């Protein structure tokens, strides 16, 4: 499974956890239990997200910073990032980095047989990339 080591920071709180690199996800999702530890403020209204099991409600808000780590070194940093937080604690088994986050900063190759995930800096600068 393409799991990476991440650090999340918000309002002076920090924690490290795992995250699934998911090319099938358009957004970035964080389990609600972790956002409570970080003290992330939840908006009053929820928004629907669509998963394999149907739609589910999420809080959409911003998180201070997400760092992607190799060992303990940061190789990708995303600041003031919009994330979706499923209201149901069991909705997602991991944090999920979707196409709106780490895929904007890296070209990613999944080598399933070797159980490797390769991250390369894109040849085209991120700002110039278009969908």
């Amino acid at each position, binding site marked *: 499974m393409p799991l990476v*080591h991440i650090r999340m920071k918000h309002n002076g709180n*920090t*924690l490290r956890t795992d995250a699934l690199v998911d090319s099938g996800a358009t957004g970035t999702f964080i389990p609600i*239990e*972790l956002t*409570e*530890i970080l003290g992330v403020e939840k908006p009053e209204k929820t928004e629907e997200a669509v998963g394999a099991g149907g739609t589910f409600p999420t809080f959409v808000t911003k998180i201070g910073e997400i760092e992607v780590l190799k*060992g303990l070194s940061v190789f990708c940093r995303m600041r003031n990032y919009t994330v979706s937080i499923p209201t149901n604690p069991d909705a997602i088994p991991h944090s999920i980095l979707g196409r709106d986050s780490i895929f904007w900063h890296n070209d990613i190759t999944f080598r399933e047989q070797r159980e490797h995930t390769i991250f390369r800096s894109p040849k085209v600068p991120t700002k110039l990339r278009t969908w």
Partner: protein
Amino acid sequence: MVNEFEYIMSISKTLTAGKWIAVVQKDIIEGYSAKEVVKQARAKYPKKEPFVMKIPSNANMLL
């Protein structure tokens, strides 16, 4: 030195699915609440940043 993420990935099959863990070096604090395991880890290791995750099941996953 192996960090907590790498350590947990190396022993993940031995852990109980569904539990939350907070890990500092090779010390694993288990429980059914993320807040609780982090609180215990911070109390035990106040100067360390714990690694936190929920142990997933080994079932096939479709998100």
